[in-house]
């Protein structure tokens, strides 16, 4: 079963009396355990698409099915529960909670969203810390970490509740080139290790080349898609 199915997906914002179309009838399918990029210039609708796939926003028209659920049917609370169970998020600015350590940031969704018991939480967090190579930095707070380290913690946080899909909006925009590649590599490793689908947006051509499936957007339309089973970078 496809993970995400978009059929005639449309999103229009209203600014006063003016309607501003952000997505204009997009059709695409995302399969499980894939590594997908939405690419395009600023304002092309990448973030809007990711927001809808992430159940943060509803389509104006068309249908978007995520993990078999029509997201238009979800109210605020149901959408929160759906995200908590199925979707992880990685943000451009990392968005870690500043007062919490790396360990606690990763643990946060298990406390606030899923309410796992303490012992199970500890095991899961340690597994993810190890997976992203941050075991030795577990006690550091975000202000004591580099950008790359923060994004590693963010990746671990996105995966900690066994999300089936991770959405990353410009995850490398605030990172230098090498660190950006390391983060993309890490995301791929996590996909391989946990079978999680990664969907990210970028306008960096070097980063978009890392994706196995790429959807190019312009002015709210999906102009093209390309598929390459495995890409290795230098």
């Amino acid at each position, binding site marked *: 079963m496809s993970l995400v199915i978009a059929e005639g997906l449309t999103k229009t914002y209203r600014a006063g009396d003016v309607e501003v179309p952000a997505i204009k009838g997009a059709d695409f399918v995302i399969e499980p355990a894939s590594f997908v990029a939405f690419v395009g210039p600023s304002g092309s609708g990448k973030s809007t698409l990711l927001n809808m796939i992430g159940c943060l926003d509803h389509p104006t028209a068309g249908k978007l099915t995520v993990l078999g659920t029509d997201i238009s049917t979800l109210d605020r609370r149901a959408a929160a529960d759906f*995200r908590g169970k199925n979707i992880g998020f990685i943000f451009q600015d990392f*968005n870690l909670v500043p007062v919490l350590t790396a360990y606690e940031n990763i643990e946060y969704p298990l406390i606030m969203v899923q309410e796992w018991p303490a012992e199970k939480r500890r095991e899961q967090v340690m597994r993810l810390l190890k997976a992203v190579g941050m075991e030795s930095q577990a006690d550091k707070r975000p202000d004591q970490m580099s950008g790359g380290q923060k994004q590693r913690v963010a990746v671990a946080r996105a995966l900690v509740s066994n999300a089936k899909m991770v959405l990353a909006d410009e995850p490398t925009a605030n990172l230098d080139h090498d660190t950006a590649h390391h983060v993309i590599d890490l995301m791929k490793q996590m996909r391989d290790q946990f079978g999680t689908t990664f969907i990210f947006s970028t306008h960096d051509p070097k980063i978009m080349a890392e994706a196995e499936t790429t959807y190019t957007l312009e002015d709210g339309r999906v102009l093209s898609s390309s598929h390459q089973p495995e890409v290795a970078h230098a």
Partner: protein
Amino acid sequence: MLDVLKIAARNLSRYRRRTMLTLLLIIIGMVAVLLFISVTGSFKSMMVGQITDSVLGHLEVHRKGYVASIDTLPLNLNMKPGAVTKVEEALKQDPAVETWSPRVKFGGMFSNFTETTTIRINGVDPAREAATAPLLPGRMAEGPKGGALVEKGQIVIPLLLARGMKVKVGDTAVIVATNRDGSVNGKTFVIRSVTEAISGPGGRDGYMHIDDARELLRMKEAEVSEIAIRLKDPAQLDRVTASLKETLGSTSGKSPDPAAAAASAGPGVASAGQPQLEVHTWADLSPFASLARMIDLMTVFIKVVLVSIVLVSVMNVMVMAVYERIREIGTIAAIGTRPSRILSLFLAEGLLLGVIGTALGTLVSLAAIYAINLWKPHFAFGQQSDLVMAPTIAVAQVVTVALLVVGVAILASLQPAWKASRLDPINALRHV
């Protein structure tokens, strides 16, 4: 919930200065309220103690209508022996009653053989009066302070009268009184002692033995104007008053033969089932009760000020916390945190502010109360000087104020917490 509290505590600690300032305001408010309650409570209990233990007792029983005419000390509204017996039986059955003192009160003329003035006389059983108003024997400005309050043939007069009439302890004076039938009688007394001027009712009262009073008034039977009652615990006042009102009010009304009961009890008890006895607390009889009520009112006002301080300071800090953490709220909402969970997180921050502020405020307040008790400041009340202020505070008062502060802190957090829980994740994540 513990995890939410832990995260809330971390969030408070990240804005250390703001949190400290808010806590300081709560602590200052708590200290102000608890100190005010303890100091005014001490003053109030001392003031009430002076009134009840020197003059009035905790409550008094009169024949119906007596208090309404108390300025004229009407002899025709005295209680008859049957009524007195009924009252005494009721008092004996209530374990909260420590003792009581029957009094015969009347207005008379005081003469030093050259001048004459008016005087209000209390005819008392010395031992019972001293037990009911235990501060009275110690308030003798002149004359013996120990021993019997007054013996037969002796009189105790107030200081103002002694000065005005230029008499002293050991002098002889004549008291002239008109009895209920209109006949005038006089009797010579030796001045045993002179009382300090007491503020409030009783301030111009003299004392003589109850047998002398009855003889002077040519009473044919042992009538009583009032019965003053002392309780073991003044906190039982309301309960005992209600109990006495019920018992004495229904004395003859529930009798199988009301006519016979009224006849045996005399006109002081009841007729036709109507209560003929009245029970009054000290507060009903003393103008200083309004001062005590004013203290209570001021305490309420101070509590309102405290509520305002806590409400404004906690709401301010929480509004700022939400505003400064909009992106963070957007993040936790995006990763699937339910709105109710976000609400509880911010409420937990308000709760912690309230609890920590209350705990510290209580500690500082108790330390301040302890320090005042070590310091022992003196003050005067009416004619009484050199009274020592010894503030105390009941656990119930501390708990009430603490719950009030914590409750208001949570209430103040409610609006910002609600706002945080309703933030749209997309807009919140875009917030700069």
